[in-house]
């Protein structure tokens, strides 16, 4: 028996862990309801804040938010992998036909960011287009120092990138050689660490590490999005199937659209009500 001691222990541990995990899962399912939310990395920070506030009021509701990408959110809601999907761009023609219900929970501006030491404070839409399509390559052409521009973009398929390219008008014409990162954090870190860099991120994720430039002398603020002067904006969408969602999830959606939920959205984004 001694010879098999280790083996037997290993098998027992395997069986034990399986039972423990499955039992744990069952127990929590009985006590409460878990809402699975997946999708855009730009929407996730807002959704997590909303989820925390809602869970505080309703302790028996567990909300799991995973930021994987807008494409994942739309597919997840379509196939039913997640109850709610998040998207930071409008649905494309090939996705509209899924027949998903769409709820706009907030509007977000996309800020064009540069390194804090960069003297450039304002760019026009044409200049931004020039930078991203490769016709402007030096900061001196924009009133800055004589340095080459390091163009930082998001990866193809990103909701932020899609919205940015559509508003600026260079759909899928990004200059070769532009650096691409997945996620808002990567773009921000890259711009914060390189004085030559220019990038774009969600206004809600903006902080002191980077400097947001005004676009055509209009500051990227929520107020300017509301009055329509700041054009680089996109909706934050939640996607679901009305018939398939649990009544708890419906409550959560109603709460997001209530005065209380929208007040939370208004902290960093533009509320829709």
């Amino acid at each position, binding site marked *: *028996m001694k010879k*098999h001691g280790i*083996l037997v222990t290993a*098998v027992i541990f395997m069986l034990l862990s399986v039972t423990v995990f499955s039992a744990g899962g069952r127990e929590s399912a009985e006590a409460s309801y878990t809402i699975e939310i997946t999708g855009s990395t730009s929407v996730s920070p807002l959704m997590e804040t909303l989820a925390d506030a809602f869970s505080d009021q309703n302790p028996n509701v567990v909300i799991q938010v995973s930021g*994987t*990408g*807008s*494409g*994942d959110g*739309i*597919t997840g809601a379509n196939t039913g992998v997640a109850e709610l999907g998040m998207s930071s761009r409008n649905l*494309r*023609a*090939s*996705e*509209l*036909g*899924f*027949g998903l219900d769409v709820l706009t929970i907030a509007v977000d501006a996309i800020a064009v960011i540069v390194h804090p030491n960069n003297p450039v404070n304002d760019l026009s839409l044409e200049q931004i287009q020039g930078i991203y399509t490769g016709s402007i390559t030096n900061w001196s052409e924009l009133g800055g120092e004589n*340095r*080459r*521009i*390091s163009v*930082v973009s998001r*990866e*193809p*398929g*990103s*909701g932020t990138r*899609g919205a940015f*390219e559509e508003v600026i008008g260079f*759909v*899928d014409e990004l200059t*070769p*050689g*532009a*650096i*691409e*990162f*997945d996620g808002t954090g990567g773009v921000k*870190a*890259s711009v914060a*660490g*390189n004085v*030559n*860099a220019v990038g774009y991120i969600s206004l809600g994720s903006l902080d002191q590490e980077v400097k947001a430039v005004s676009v055509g002398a209009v500051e990227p603020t929520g107020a300017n999005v509301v009055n329509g002067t700041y054009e680089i904006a996109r909706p934050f969408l939640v996607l679901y199937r009305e018939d398939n969602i649990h009544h708890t999830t419906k409550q959560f959606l109603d709460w997001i659209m209530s005065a209380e939920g929208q007040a939370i959205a208004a902290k960093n984004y533009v509320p829709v009500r």
Partner: protein
Amino acid sequence: MKKEMRKQVDIGIRYLFRVISYFSVVALAAILIFIFYQGVIPFVASTAPAIRLVTEHIPEIQVNGSTYVNHRTFIDVPSKDDEIVISFEHQGEYIELQLEINPDKTNPEQVVRFPASLAEQVTSPEANTYTITFPGGLPGLEKKIHINIPEPPYRFFAFLLGDEWRPVYRKLYGILPMITATLMTTFGAVLLGVPIALLASVMTAEFLSPKSAFFVRSSIDLLAGIPSVVYGFFGLMIIVPIIQRVFGSASGSSLLAAVIVLSIMILPTVISITITSLEAVPESYREASLALGATKMQTSWRIVFPAARSGILAGGILGTSRAVGETMAVILVAGNSPQFPSSLTDSVRTMTATIALEMGYSAGRHNQMLFSIGVILFVIICVLNGIIMKLKQHMLEDA
């Protein structure tokens, strides 16, 4: 009785082993079949069987004689129809559109012909998609009809040899820049890393005192255990800014940064296997060489090193595979732009980086194309291993 039970346990455990080993084979096969299946679809099938319409803000619409009320999903136009007749009410008027279909045309722009009167209302937001817009009373409530034309099977050579990766709107899936980048970063890393690793191993195995050799070996084993994202972070914070400063480029994220980080990452793998194989060379070889008057250096390079070459080659194989498959560290330092690098300071994107970057953001054919990249990666690794195996055989025959 005790013996009997022991026998039973023995048999039981043997069955358990068998099940586990079969399970691993089945799991591997399932993964491979899934990836191959997904990866082959774009080259054999169209994205949809027929032209599909989607409407926005049109409560009631007739398409080729069928009426759809508050229809939100796709409206499929049967492939045998040679025209699309759409009619609906707009601002009190009754609108009828007649669109001709030429399913045989390969150019998507010619598949559906729009009447000249619609020219101003038709836009193409992305390749193979046309949108007809009718202005509504409020912004955002325009009546829209989207026409999705199925994409024909993608040509395999346009995929393998295409130089543009524009997957979202223009639907171009050329991966040659990524194949180039993967090969360049890998060979660069092997070129830079393997000589360093070999020198370090010979030094450690042959010249260092047992005490310091033990110290070096354990530090290298420790290096092997560091997660790759940490190497990437080190590269991003240290190597990338240095490259930017030294070369005066716009950004330090480059092919060179990827090569340097990868060459550091393959060091532990190559070194530890090389040391092991050098140590496995019988002591009598060294004694004989030294007895014949060779110096310590001559013995190491001319006797011990050739005797251990199959093990050294194995280390090289593992190092190369690690460099090909490395993802996280490369994403952080390479800059990820899908282009052919014209210099060492240009940013590149490897195949694994593409899969990792875009998997969460892709849908439909774009998603399947990422699996196709996985298949190509698999083939590259198989070919690479095949070449090295052949080399090894040659070397063993020569010996």
